[in-house]
């Protein structure tokens, strides 16, 4: 009985949200096969952690979306991912590995919205949201004061909101 109820609950989550989560995962890992692997782990984690979900802190989908985003960023940062992307690039056209921003991937989900942002803001959102860099890391890499990084990202995000609403 409990097992049946669990499976029903899981099926509900999966049937309703797997596509949306996969879209988001794909916009970060930019590889459909890897994205499907990540989706598996994401749902396993969702299932393991479901009791820690707190309705006061946000909607269920937001909670799941953040698990998916974090898992995707972990994947992108993993050695296996970097190696597979390196090989792919060398095999394709000898392109510089790690160059994940470019016109070809801008039509994927939230990235499409992001592409409407002005140059620097777009890079900031890409680094923070899609690549998971902290404000401190961005500040160091781009040689911009931390306070400026924060306000610019906040500004970019408010623009993003008006675009998707």
């Amino acid at each position: 009985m409990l097992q049946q109820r669990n499976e029903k609950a899981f099926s509900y989550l999966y049937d309703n949200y797997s596509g949306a989560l996969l879209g988001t995962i794909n916009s970060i890992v930019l590889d459909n096969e890897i994205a499907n692997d990540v989706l598996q782990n994401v749902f396993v984690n969702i299932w393991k952690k479901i009791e820690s979900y707190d309705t006061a802190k946000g909607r269920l989908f937001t909670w799941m979306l953040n698990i998916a985003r974090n898992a995707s960023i972990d994947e992108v940062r993993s050695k296996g991912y970097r190696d597979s992307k390196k090989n792919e690039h060398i095999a394709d056209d000898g392109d510089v590995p790690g160059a994940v921003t470019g016109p070809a991937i801008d039509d994927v989900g939230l990235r499409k919205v992001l592409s409407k942002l002005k140059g620097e803001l777009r890079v900031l959102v890409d680094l923070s949201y899609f690549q998971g860099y902290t404000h401190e890391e961005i500040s160091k890499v781009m040689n911009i004061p931390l306070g400026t990084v924060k306000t610019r990202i906040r500004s970019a995000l408010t623009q993003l909101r008006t675009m998707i609403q």
Partner: protein
Amino acid sequence: MNVKEYISTGIVESYVLGLASEEERREFEKMCEQYPEVLQARINFELAMEKQAMENSISPMPGIKNKILEKINISNPASIQTAKVRNLNWLKYAAAACLLLLAGSLYWNISLYSKNQQLKVDYDNTVAKLSGMEKEVQLITNNPNVKMASMKGMEVSPQSFATVYWDTTSHDVYLMVNNLPKPASDKQYQLWALLDGKPIDVGLIDNEYFIKETRLLIKAKNIQNAQAFAITLETKGGNPTPKGTMYVMGNL
């Protein structure tokens, strides 16, 4: 900073997208509790993100769902609990199956026992029948004066076969019916001795014989002399001279 300003700083988006620092998160959660406008702003942006994500859905590869189900069945502590429950269920079914088997076995034993009893009765009857037959056979086989006539089936019934034993000293006649078709209830077999081409009535075969088949040898009338024997199928009660079909015939 008033609430409206706070909302417009981008903290809402930063929080929902998971980009806020731990300190910012704690502050934002407090603000949500205190100010319904902040909470509403959060929910609005969450819904916008959800809608955006839904619109950019990609169907997972087939089989992913089952793979996940397999994984969470192993790793989820809740499912370990259910596994225990399932084990108990299994035991319950096993116990029920055992009871059914036991009941079935008991029934089988009882039916075997009654069958066995029936067989015992049948066996006793057969032994009694056999010992009676043996005595009759001994009467003939132990007697060196007995002559035998094997009567073979005629064209009307080639499978038919019967044997006559004639005691040359006592002139007793015994008939053994090896194989004769069962007569109709208004007919009866009649045994004839043939002497110089003339039939002599030796006796009727009781129709009961064909029903019970208890007697191996049928005692017929005494006869002084005979060269051959034959059986015909006559009207019930028999005839002084044969009128019916001859079934078997054989010389002494």
